[in-house]
């Protein structure tokens, strides 16, 4: 029984900066831009796409059915600005590709600024909600749209609701089979979860999570020793924050580390625009604990947690001494065994010689001539 498909698409515009994503269709073998379908609305727009990495996982929804689809390819009149961040391909969903996302961002030479388009095509069993995470770091005009596949145009659609959290959004733009809302995301309060519910014979829902970029940190604790220095690194891949701040926890409080505070103890380096480094010198056991790095974006702040462990030198010294002791014992055992077996051999030889001498003596005394060769021990 074929499952109905629902296109969910959102598009947005954004002034200023350029952020681009291109997620190619991976469910199709050797997916290529050629597979991208051009929707009627976008026909007169051209666009250039480039690749960056999507910081937030796109594989958020565990849909049982997979669809593979690609999404629009849009072309716009403008040109890509110089701030292109080219990076590795977008994270590829696993083999059970359930959804495909395609997000593009181009510069449009209009007064509106940039436009972000995001289309997700999914088909799943009715009732299961599709969840999409969208990462935004600066102010953007966004259009989110839910589009119903053409084959269901005949189906009766009773109701389409757009909600932010629990609050229903009033003005929905309806075109043919798609329902969209336009939003201007200008500050933190506008971020959140937006959901679209299409109620017809069956119910489909899509949830868009609009979030600030996540910080990339090492999840294992950083291990250092007293008197040593520690380097804590936070990365924000793909997005450049406006500023970074570091916090250390004192009990349950978070205290910001001001450079001016302890100049010879803490050094904060911004190695790259999206990488920050906190160097802590002259470590003591008091420096052990949790550290936070906070990246400030236009649309909000994002935190990363780092654990620092400060050990004393005694800690690795114990296994070290244990192993050295083992080595010494083994070497001693081997040498002793060798000496012992050599002595045993010598004793055996001496006894043999002794026996031979006895034998010869007795032979001589018996007057037996010895013409045979003497046996020599080899």
């Amino acid at each position, binding site marked *: 029984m074929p499952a109905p498909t629902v296109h969910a698409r959102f598009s947005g515009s954004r002034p200023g900066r350029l952020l681009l994503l291109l997620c190619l269709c991976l469910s199709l073998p050797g997916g290529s831009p050629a597979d991208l379908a051009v929707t009627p609305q976008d026909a007169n727009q051209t666009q250039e796409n480039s690749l960056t990495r999507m910081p937030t996982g796109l594989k958020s929804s565990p849909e049982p059915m997979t669809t593979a689809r690609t999404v629009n390819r849009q072309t716009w009149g403008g040109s890509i600005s110089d701030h292109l961040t080219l990076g590795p391909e977008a994270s590829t969903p696993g083999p059970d590709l359930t959804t495909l996302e395609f997000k593009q961002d181009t510069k449009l030479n209009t007064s509106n600024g940039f436009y972000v388009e995001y289309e997700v095509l999914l088909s799943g069993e009715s009732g299961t909600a599709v969840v999409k995470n969208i990462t935004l770091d600066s102010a953007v005009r966004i259009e989110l749209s839910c589009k119903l596949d053409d084959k269901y145009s005949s189906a009766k659609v009773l109701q389409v609701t757009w909600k932010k959290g629990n609050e229903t959004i009033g003005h929905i733009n309806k075109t043919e089979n798609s329902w969209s809302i336009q939003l201007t995301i200008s500050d933190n309060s506008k971020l959140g979860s937006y959901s679209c519910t299409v109620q017809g014979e069956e119910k489909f829902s899509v949830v868009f999570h609009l979030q600030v970029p996540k910080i990339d940190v090492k999840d294992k604790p950083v291990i*250092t*020793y007293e008197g040593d220095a520690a*380097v804590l690194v936070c990365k924000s891949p793909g997005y450049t924050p406006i500023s970074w701040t570091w916090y250390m926890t004192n009990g349950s409080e978070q205290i910001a580390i001001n450079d001016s505070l302890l100049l010879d103890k803490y050094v904060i380096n911004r190695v790259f625009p999206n990488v920050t480094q906190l160097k802590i010198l002259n470590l003591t056991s008091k420096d052990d604990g949790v550290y936070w790095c906070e990246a400030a974006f236009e649309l909000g702040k994002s935190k990363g947690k780092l654990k620092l462990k400060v*050990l004393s030198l005694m*800690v690795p010294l114990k296994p070290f001494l244990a*192993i050295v002791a083992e080595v010494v014992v083994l070497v001693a055992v081997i040498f002793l065994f060798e000496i012992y077996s050599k002595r045993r051999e010598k004793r055996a030889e001496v006894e043999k010689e002794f026996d031979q001498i006895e034998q010869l003596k007795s032979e001589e005394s018996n007057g037996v001539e010895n013409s045979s060769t003497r046996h020599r021990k*080899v």
Partner: protein
Amino acid sequence: MPSPANAGPAPGPPDGGWGWVVVFGAFISIGFAYAFPKGIAIFFKEIQGFFDTSYSEIAWVSSIMLATTYGAGPISSILVNRYGSRPVVIFGGLLCGIGMVSAAFCTSILQLYICVGFITGFGLALNLQPSVIIIGKYFLKRRPIANGLAMAGSPVMLCTLAPLNQFLFDNFGWRGSFLILGAILLNCCVAGALFRPIGAPKTQSNEEAKEVLKEGVAKDAMEMNSSTNIPVETKTEEEAKDCCEKINKYLDFSLFKHRGFLIYLIGNVLMFLGFFAPIVFLAPYAKHIGIDEYSAAFLLSILAIVDMIARPATGIIANSKWVRPRIQYFFSFSIAFNGACHLLCPLASGYKGLVVYAVFFGLAFGMVCAMLFETLMDLVGATRFTSAVGLVTIAECCTILLGPPIGGTLIDTFGDYKYMFIKCGAVMVLAGTFLFIMNYYNYRMLAKEKRKAKEEDPKSVRTESEGRNNLNKDTVQDGPELEPLREEQERLKKEVNGTNEV
């Protein structure tokens, strides 16, 4: 007729008994020597962030270590010639331990180069050569098996070290890990303690030594490809020879006149240009064609596991009576096979293709490694092997170091990995073919010499020259305790006319 002194003919290598314990010790020693430089790569990222350097500067640590391990070969050989395997390995183990422990307290990248690169590298060199040498002393008939088993130490240690290093790093950071690794490397001393010296004991009188050497002399006469009637040397000639022989006592440079040795040297130096690069670039290549990191790492595990099995298996095959006399051909074949694998790699598409490639590569790699030293022993014999291995490793050192960077340059220039594979494959096929042809020529020449020696000296029991069987040559145990008394050999040569043969 029994010989007057206590010894009849010197006993042949035991080919068993304590020999297997020695193989175990060599297994550990060789394993550390080969696997350790690769194993510490896990720490590099952290150290790089700590010292604020680029990745290539950190990678130098590994390169210096590898270079020192191979480059210090001759020094190792000289020391073994002088003192024997056991003290050298124990000293090497101590040196490794000291190097790593001091590395734990390093405060700059330069200090790391010295401690980890030079000191530990030198210690590993003092581990590697003696282990290989002592196998030649303990085994003859079963030498290929012993070699295969001992060389299997490398993949086993690598598979053990990788997760162990990760565990140590997660719990102790890089400094603590270096400290503990220093202690672990001290286990090489244990391996060294197992290397009981073998050969005529030092306490033999000169008389007995001469007796023992008589057999060696007889063979040496054949060996030198000269007529059996050695002319009486003038005094000056003897003096000059004394000096050369003194040097040769420590490091046998006369090997450069040895045909088999030269063939081996040229072939191997060529081969190493393309030997290690594919391993270095296998995981990046896999990631390049879209495979995720864990599967790419798994490819290397597959390679290591197949390698582990291939080495002893190759040893057993090489020991069989069909292959042993023609072991050089088998070696050339395995090199060419290795090259063919690389040439076919670009055709592999997708993960499954790469898995197949990894399996065949592991097999070929294991085959070559298992026979690497066995063939050299076969060509020069156990007595001269000590020096031969030192000279060979220092020559290989250059190409080993050049291989991966050349591959890397090819990849960077063309943006495609296939040229690197083609280059490696072509080089190895060329090396394999060269070795095959030259060894065919060598075998023929040896057979000719054998026939000549037979014709000229029919009474001599030892009519076999250093032909396919270097067995006879190896029955004389020239341990380091017994310095090749070449001057006496020269004098004794005059007696050689099939007399006093046992």
